[in-house]
C-alpha cells in the first residue's frame, strides 16, 4: 500500500500577521515557513504506519501545490522521512484551484490512502481534502482522529458530536485528519536531513483552472477593550461585571 500526504506551506504559527498592498497581500517579510501543523501530524502518522511492518505500507509520498520557493518545506517533509515528493508548480489561488491541481496529478498515480490535515493555519478553509475526493470520486472521511491498518484494511476513527465512530471505507480514500492522529510531529535527524537532499521531488506543471473565489482584503481582528482587573480577594465584583456589564451569565 502507498500513502500520499498533501502538505501546505504556511507561516510559522507564532508569526506576527501583517499585510501589504492595501491589506490585500500577506506580508512575508522575515517570515519562517513551515509544514502546516495538521499536515505535519498526518505525515507523522503515515510514517508511523510505514515503520510498522505489519501494515504493509511501502512508501509515503508528499504532494504540494506551490512555486519553487516552497521547496525548503518539502525538503523538511523528506527529512522527517517521506520517501519522495510531488510539487505542482503553481501559486495556490484558492481551495478549488489547489484541489483541482492535486486531483489532476492523482488521476495518474496509484495511492491507496491520501491524508490531508483538517485545515491550513493561514486560510482556515477545511476544504481541500474533501474537494480532491470529490474530483476523483473517492470516499472521504472527515474529523479523523485515528488511523490503523489491520489485515490490509484501514480502520478509521472519526469524531462525531459527543463521541467517536470507528468506520471503514473502500480504498482508495481520503482521510481528513485532526488532533489525535499522532501525538508529536517528528523532528528531522541529521541523517534524515542529509538523505532529503538526494530524494526526488517530481515537478509537475499545472493545468489551467480558474479559482472560484478571491480574497479582496484582509482585516485585523477587532481590537478588544483593555482588560479590567478585579481584586483577587473580591471575585464578587467580577460576577457583577459579568452579570450587569457583559450580560453573559
Amino acid at each position, binding site marked *: 500500500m502507498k500513502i500520499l500526504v498533501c502538505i501546505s506551506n504556511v507561516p510559522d*504559527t507564532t508569526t506576527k*500577521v501583517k*499585510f501589504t498592498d492595501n491589506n490585500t497581500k*500577506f506580508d512575508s517579510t522575515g517570515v519562517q515557513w513551515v509544514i502546516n*501543523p*495538521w499536515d505535519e501530524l498526518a505525515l507523522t502518522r503515515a510514517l508511523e504506519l510505514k515503520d510498522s511492518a505489519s501494515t504493509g505500507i511501502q512508501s509515503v509520498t508528499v504532494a504540494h501545490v506551490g512555486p519553487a520557493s516552497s521547496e525548503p518545506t518539502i525538503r523538511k517533509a523528506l527529512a522527517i522521512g517521506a520517501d519522495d515528493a510531488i510539487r505542482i508548480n503553481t501559486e495556490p489561488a484558492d*481551495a*478549488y484551484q489547489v*484541489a483541482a491541481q492535486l486531483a489532476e496529478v492523482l488521476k495518474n498515480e496509484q495511492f491507496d490512502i491520501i491524508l490531508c490535515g483538517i485545515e491550513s493555519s493561514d*486560510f*482556515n*478553509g*477545511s*476544504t*481541500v*481534502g*474533501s*474537494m480532491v*475526493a*470529490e474530483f476523483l470520486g473517492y*470516499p*472521504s*472521511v*472527515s*474529523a479523523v*482522529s485515528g488511523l490503523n491498518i489491520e489485515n490490509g484494511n484501514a480502520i478509521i476513527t*472519526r469524531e*462525531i*458530536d*459527543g463521541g*467517536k*465512530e470507528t*468506520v*471503514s*471505507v473502500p480504498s482508495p480514500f481520503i482521510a481528513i485528519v485532526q*488532533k489525535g492522529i499522532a501525538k508529536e510531529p517528528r523532528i528531522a535527524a541529521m541523517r534524515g536531513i542529509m538523505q532529503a537532499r538526494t530524494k526526488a521531488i517530481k515537478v509537475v506543471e499545472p493545468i489551467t483552472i480558474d*479559482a472560484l*473565489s*478571491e*480574497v*479582496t*482584503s*484582509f482585516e*485585523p*481582528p477587532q481590537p*478588544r477593550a483593555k*482588560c*479590567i*482587573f*478585579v481584586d*483577587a*480577594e473580591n*471575585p*464578587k465584583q*467580577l*460576577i457583577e461585571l*459579568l452579570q450587569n456589564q*457583559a450580560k*453573559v*451569565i
Partner: protein
Amino acid sequence: MSVLVFAENWDGKFKKLSFELVSYGTKVAEMLGTSATILSIGNVADEELSKLGNYGAKKILSLKNDALNILDSQAYTAVIAEIALKEEAKVIVISNNNTGKSIAPRLSVRLKAAIGSGVSKLPLSTSPFVVYKRAYSGNAYANLELKSDIKIITLAQNSFDLIETPNQVSIEAAAANVDNSMVKTKVNDVQKQTGKLLLTDAEIVVSGGRGMKSPDNWTPLVELADLLGGATACSRPVSDEGWRPHEEHTGQTGKIVAPNLYIAVGISGATQHLAGVSSSKYIVAINTDKDAPIFEAAQYGIVGDAAKVLPKLIEAVKEAKGR
C-alpha cells in the same frame, strides 16, 4: 432562485446551531430578494420541524431515507446537490461543524460553487458576493469574494445571533436519488456520551491550564462550570500530560470554540491557544503572572492563584444565583 439551508438534527432534535443556520439563511435570502428553503435530512417529527418556523423558516423539505442514517460524505453530497438544483438555490448555507466540513467542500466541486467557510457575518455585499471569514487562525479576517453562480457558505457556530420571526411553516416530504449502494462508509462501532453538554455547543466555557498545577485540582473548576451551566476545557499541555481528555483541548490544534464567555484559569495565552478561543465574546483570565499574554485578549482579569481564586469565585456565583 432560493437560498437552501441544510438544518442538521441530532437524534431527531434540533439545537441552537440549527436555528442559527435558519436565521442566517433567512437573512441572506432577504438580502437577495428571495426566500429560504430549509432542508432537513433524517427522521424529524413535524412538531420539531415546525420549531424552525420561529426563526424565519417558511418552506421546509423533510427528507427521510434510511440510506442517510450514516453520515457518508458522498451520499449526502449527492442528495444536497440534487435538491439544490431542483430548488434553483443560488446560495447554500451549511454549518461549519464536522458534518458541514465533510459535505460542503464536496458540494463545492459537484456544483462548481465557490465556498466561504467559517463565515461569521452576513455577506458584506451580494453583488459582488463578499463574505467575511476567519483567517490566519484568528489573527486576521478575510473579505472573500465568491465568484461562481452558486455559492456555499459554512457558518461558524455561535457567531450569528438568532432572529426570532415566527412563521407558519409548510412541511413537504422530499425525495432524492439515494440508496444503500451509494453509501461507502461502514460504521463498525460508536462510542457516544449522551447528556453531556458539548464543548462546541456551550455558551460558557471554563478552561484550565498548567497553572492548575495538578489534575487533582480540577474539582473547583468543574464545579464552577456546572454552576454556570457551562462546559469544561483545557489547554494543550494539560491534554498532552493526560490531566484532562483530548476532547477538552481548545486551541489551534484542538477545538476552535466561540462561546459567549470563556474563563481561562491558569492559562498563559500562547498564540496557539488564543487561535482557538479568540472568537469568544468575552474572555476572563485568572493567572498569577500579571504580564501573561492572556490578559491582552481578556476583558476581565484577576491576578491570582487558581487554587485560591476559584473557591471565592464559586461562592460569589452561588450568592449571585441565590443558592
